[in-house]
């Protein structure tokens, strides 16, 4: 009983604040409406005993939204970032994309022939979670292990390429200028 009340409160909150993202007229409000939506989803995950995933969703999403608000205001360089502005554009295409996505996902959830539980009941939630983890990741661990270093290398390379100032700008052509020529001195004194 209590669980269903909590679920419905969180579900309505998640959808309502998701709608609010597009109805409010301020960057900050839109960002934090999205954060509230994510937090409600994260807390709803606690109801199905996904404690770690639920709490980590709250953690990640609040942090991401806090940083995203800064970027949104920063890149919307002109005044509107600080003024009331509409949070939607290209309405028709956006509505079409949203409806299509919803139909595909909801249809998938309803129409896919989900397997019923074959094994004798694993008994605990932990057993189910472990079985699910094995099924999803078990045979693909090698791929994941190979992909992650490649992804890290890509991120590092991307940051290096995007950086306006490299080590030759800081340390001179022979990399021997000390202290480094930085527009913004750091705290370690390199």
């Amino acid at each position, binding site marked *: 009983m209590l669980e269903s009340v909590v679920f419905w409160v969180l579900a309505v909150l998640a959808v309502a604040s998701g709608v609010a993202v597009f109805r409010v007229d301020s960057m900050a409000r839109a960002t934090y409406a999205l954060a509230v939506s994510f937090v409600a989803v994260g807390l709803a995950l606690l109801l199905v005993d996904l404690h770690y995933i639920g709490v980590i969703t709250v953690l990640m999403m609040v942090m991401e939204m806090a940083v995203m608000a800064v970027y949104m205001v920063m890149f919307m360089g002109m005044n509107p970032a600080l003024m009331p502005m509409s949070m939607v554009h290209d309405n028709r295409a956006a509505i079409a994309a949203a409806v299509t996505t919803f139909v595909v996902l909801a249809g998938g959830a309803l129409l896919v022939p989900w397997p019923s539980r074959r094994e004798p009941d694993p008994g605990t939630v932990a057993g189910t979670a472990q079985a699910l983890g094995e099924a999803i990741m078990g045979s693909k661990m090698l791929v994941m292990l190979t992909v992650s270093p490649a992804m890290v290398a890509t991120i590092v390379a991307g940051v290096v390429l995007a950086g306006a100032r490299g080590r030759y700008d800081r340390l001179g052509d022979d990399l021997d200028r000390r202290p480094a020529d930085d527009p913004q001195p*750091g705290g370690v004194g390199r």
Partner: protein
Amino acid sequence: MAESLFWALVAAFLLGCLAVAAASLDGALGARGRGAGNLAGGWSAPLAETARLMRQRRRTLVAADVLLWRTGGAALLVAALLKVAVVPVDGWALADLAVGLVWFNAMDVTVWAAVWLTGWGANSAHALIGGYRFLAQGLAYELPLMFALTAPAVAAGSLRLAEVEAAQRGGAWFVLWMPVAFAVYCLGVVAFSVWGPLSVAAGVDLAGGVLAELSGVDRLLVLAGRYALLATGAAFAVPMFLGGADGPLLPGWAWFALKTLLLLAVLVALKRRLPVLRPDRFVEVGWLVLLPAVLLQVLVVSVVAVWRY
């Protein structure tokens, strides 16, 4: 149900007492620093300030985003209250979550949002810069703090705080063999409480930063929230690093209270011992010094944990 509600109120009351104690100590230290002969005025400063703020009229600002402003201001205290829920006293916690440690971490991240919203909502340049400063500082302290929190979890093999506490009972307290993690954790507590050396977001050079436009009960909430966060940080360190309720002679809860008060007093006193760190300087320290140091600490702890089991 009714019983847990009762204990929730007790926990909130105790947190309030700790926050008032911290504020009183800060008032007394401030009075001593000013050379006041009688420290009574310093000790009672938080009561006088509360009475003053309760009577003060709320400031109204042009085009302030009142909803976000008030939400941010109240969220600090709410985050502190949600944090104490998972802190075990002698093995018993209000909400003994299996992922209590992650819960604490999630709540200290909400402080990012709260401080920035407090800065943003006022529609004032000083407050806004204060909010941005806090996020810049957050990028420096949060990752080292997260890794510092993992060290006791790895050693205890659990994210449940009661089990972390139990792992230290009768043995070596975690602070003894993970001092780096403890130091970084304390720095993190100081940072998410916008306190002392990491209080640039509310710096005097910014006319108070995020506090600049706050008045009346709004200001009271934010100031109380900061002290409450400092107090929860101290209380959380006890089961994590300081052996929890472990100690001779006295009952468990007394040891818990004693350790919490001692650490809280040290954290409060830090304000007058260390200079304020600029976020642009501190970011480099965070990433080039604190993060590698705490990663090495976690490595050492992991090796010990593997070797032990």
